[in-house]
């Protein structure tokens, strides 16, 4: 993929901080993120639980106001007035993890799909558009499903309804937050195939949030790996998932069943209310622990020096070690950058 296309949506130095509960420290759920999604591109955002993926996705859709940084859509910063948001949400759609929860149990399939149309006052030829959206989402014949309630559908069908509800407004961007995580393994592939097909047919751009590297491999063009509120490695799927630079990405890949000798990271999942100083990954970094970093002479840097925010394009890894290796091979400064 190239970075030459103008990004459809782009986040610049995005930060979201949640005030701490009961006087606890505040949580930096998103802590400086640059991310672009170009038209017709599928970007996978991967990372372990609690690293801020959902928060980032919600912020991109204006459901969460950033505490810092901006989100721009087609080059325009997002407005947070109700009018501006409404207009934006006509074009950008959200698909949530849990299809059962995403459907109001009291609304029929028809109501659920038509909801977006009704909100935006596009009630003319509503029926046709609902039918069309449903069939595009693979529910054929659509009329058969109109009057069904969510509980009368299987999980896969529900997720299709949710997708149809997003498609009905002819969006240009879909943000899917773990779209298949709650589905059975057997159904999962069908939904992913649907997403690929939609991209093909409609040229949809999509940001797919997931903790499943297999999913990224299955459908994404580009992948961004997130750790503790930051994107720590980004680049084309083929590159990142086969030859990752960042120790964290390496660890993630290693624990996949086929990933060879698993590198099981020590310690508990990171806590966004206590972001460690230096490289935010250093406390769990296997490269640092095994002395590889020491050998490369960056151990101190790892412990003390925070890394700059990646700019969200190209192939990059926010890692002192990778940087040092890069330096060693190319002599260049700055962070690692492969031109794609």
């Amino acid at each position, binding site marked *: 993929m190239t970075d030459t296309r103008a990004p459809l949506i782009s986040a610049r130095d995005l930060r979201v901080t949640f005030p701490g509960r009961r006087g606890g420290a505040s949580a930096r759920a998103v802590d400086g993120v640059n991310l672009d999604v170009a038209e017709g591109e599928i970007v996978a955002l991967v990372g372990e639980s609690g690293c801020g993926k959902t928060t980032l996705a919600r912020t991109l859709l204006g459901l969460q106001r950033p505490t810092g940084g901006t989100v721009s859509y087609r080059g325009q910063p997002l407005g947070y007035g109700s009018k501006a948001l409404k207009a934006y949400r006509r074009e950008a759609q959200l698909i949530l993890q849990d299809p059962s929860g995403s459907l109001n149990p009291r609304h029929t399939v028809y109501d659920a799909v038509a909801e977006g149309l009704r909100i935006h006052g596009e009630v003319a030829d509503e029926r046709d558009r609902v039918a069309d959206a449903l069939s595009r989402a693979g529910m054929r014949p659509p009329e058969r499903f109109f009057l069904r309630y969510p509980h009368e559908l299987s999980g896969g069908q529900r997720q299709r309804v949710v997708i149809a509800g997003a498609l009905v407004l002819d969006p240009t961007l879909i943000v899917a937050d773990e779209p298949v995580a709650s589905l059975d393994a057997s159904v999962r592939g069908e939904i992913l195939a649907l997403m690929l097909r939609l991209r093909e047919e409609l040229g949809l751009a999509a940001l797919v949030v997931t903790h499943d590297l297999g999913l990224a491999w*299955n459908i994404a063009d580009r992948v961004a790996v997130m750790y503790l509120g930051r994107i720590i490695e980004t680049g084309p799927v083929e590159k990142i998932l086969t030859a990752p630079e960042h120790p964290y990405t390496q660890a993630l890949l290693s624990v996949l069943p086929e990933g060879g000798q698993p590198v099981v990271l020590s310690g508990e999942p990171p806590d966004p209310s206590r972001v460690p100083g230096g490289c935010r990954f250093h406390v769990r970094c296997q490269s640092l622990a095994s002395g590889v970093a020491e050998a490369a002479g960056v151990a101190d840097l790892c412990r003390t020096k925070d890394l700059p925010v990646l700019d969200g394009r190209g192939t990059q890894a926010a890692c002192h070690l990778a940087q040092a290796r890069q330096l060693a091979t190319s002599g260049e400064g700055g962070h690692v950058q492969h031109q794609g």
Partner: protein
Amino acid sequence: MTSPLLRLEGLSVGYRTRDGVVPAVRGVDLTLARGEKLGVAGESGSGKSTLALALLRLLPPSATVTGRVLLDGEDVTEMGWGRLRAVRWAGASIIFQGAMHSLNPVQTIGDQITEPILRHQKVSRESADTRVAELLGQVGMLPDRARSYPHELSGGQRQRVMIAMALACEPDLVIADEPTTALDVMVQAQILTLIEDLVARRGISLLMISHDLSVLSDVCDRLAIMYAGRVVEVGPADEVFRQARHPYGAALASAFPTVGDPASRMRPQGLAGDPPDPQALPSGCAFHPRCAVRLEHCDAVDPQLWPATEGHDVACVRVLPDDGRSLAPGPTRAEEAAR
């Protein structure tokens, strides 16, 4: 090898509900040798948990169980309550899926781990406490965590506590029902490594349930795949995962792509159709409506497990001699098919 540790013979479980009986498990035959690790996979609702609970008669009163569950040669379904209580945990223990819910929220984890020790072993409170510290150490937790309450622990830690608890009475069999679902990839890896390690070290038999075939194939020696309350395929883990003979097994295996494998890049594999409704199972092979390679008589033949290769049984007409056509008119006798 002597007699198997666990042997299920024609185990069926039905739940009585207002809308009739839900057949959750339909005639399962399985064996588990001592020290063996058996994985059970299958999609949601295929009866995995029901099977696990049936092993220790932990099913709700609305469930009816038929068939036999032979644990060390003794039929669990016919034990007296006293004997059953003695077998529970000391003979076989369970690691449940959601540790948050499987641990009593208002008791310290120490007390909860101590409880079965005191119940099943004639030991003093003090030695039980020592044992708790030891167990916690084995699962990689500090002994002073014994005073914590479940909510004070992370999901991974809770799951460790469950594991420590399961090992408390040194059982012969540990049943792990989706021990890592809902856990983060990283933690999942930690827990699996831990279980594998502990079980191997003590020679405990393991029955592990998951819907994630790739996870099971990694940990277990043998794999059983369930569909609609039946075991449709059982065999050596690697073989089942890589060359599943049952179309459902194959679909399940391919749902977990291999990262880096160009074959699955941009080509997600799925299984069309909806999971079966246990109360309205299709005729013949329960899988046939979703089967991509079904034969025309699949809706008439309900195939039983049949040895496809040595130690690898499959319940699919395709592994039967003449694609099972000869069986078409009537149902086969269970004993014949599953030997």
